[in-house]
């Protein structure tokens, strides 16, 4: 009889702890800042942008791969699969190379819309962002 009673007591005690610990966890989640990180596969291009007085360029892979297969950019347009290895000049884009093969007012909006691409926070470093950090293709 005593054994059963002690067991019940223990259970009750556990129940008492439960809401407290839940509250503590909830508070912890509230206090800790939400991790602000890019969408997986976002690429920051800032080799030249900020030196030329523009915001860094954010290239979203997710947006483009809904609409185009990898081969379009990595074969036809000729982007190498390594962040930093493609030397993209704004003059080339306006002439219809690199991004300018689509961003020409025919397939997509043209290079006169500066702020849509040059939309990054000042001071960002170039490279692939988002997701679990491995050495990854973000390395230079």
């Amino acid at each position: 009889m005593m054994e059963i009673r002690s067991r019940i007591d223990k259970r009750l005690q556990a129940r008492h702890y439960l809401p407290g610990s839940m509250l503590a966890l909830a508070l912890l989640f509230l206090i800790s800042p939400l991790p602000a990180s890019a969408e997986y596969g976002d690429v920051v291009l800032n080799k030249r942008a900020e030196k030329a007085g523009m915001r860094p360029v954010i290239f979203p892979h997710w947006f483009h791969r809904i609409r185009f297969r990898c081969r379009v950019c990595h074969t036809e347009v000729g982007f190498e699969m390594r962040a930093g290895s493609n030397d993209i000049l704004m003059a080339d884009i306006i002439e219809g190379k690199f991004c300018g093969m689509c961003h020409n007012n025919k397939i997509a909006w043209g290079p006169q819309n500066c702020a849509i691409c040059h939309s990054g926070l000042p001071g960002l470093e170039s490279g692939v962002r988002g997701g679990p950090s491995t050495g990854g293709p973000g390395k230079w």
Partner: protein
Amino acid sequence: MKQIMSVTERAMRSFIVGRLVAACIGLWCFNAVQAAPPEVYAPDGPGRWLPILADGLHDPSGPGVHLLQNPADALFYLPSTPTGNKVRWVEAIQEGDIEPVASILDKNFQMQVLDLDIMRTRTAELPMVLFPHKRHTEWLDCSNCHEWLFKSKTGATRFGMFDVLTGEYCGRCHGAVAFPLTDCYTCHSVKRSSLKKPVKELELHK
């Protein structure tokens, strides 16, 4: 003179009324034919994707950011997974949820899909790696990987997980844009016990 005026006035009136009626009919027809496509937005509430203005990358004070599509609005209806873009991209293409353009130079271009599985057996303690060509060639050209990165001959390219983790070989895409390297068992998917005899390198034709 008065008569002439009244005649011209009448003509003008009938002309204006006629144009108004025509414009109304035109507007009505135009609206009926060209109904605006319904805009789809992700359901409200905390989603699986950070909005553009809170992703720590975009400058909220930039003049162009409000024109950008939020990831949630584009990705919420695609087959989901907990990692990466939270999208099963291969399934999305196979089930027809998305139809990405295969070529911008040739309208009649068809993807060269190769249905050939490669098994990499030297994976130490982990299950063996099954590489499906089919899933890759739905997105990529042969030349995106061969011969500069991987040799076509099975087993001729020697590399290890360390190379992949530093962004070489599979790590060119996996860990950056394709599903991340933390999804170990998506690649390491074949248990050694499922093979009767130990083999060096396997090429499985379908």
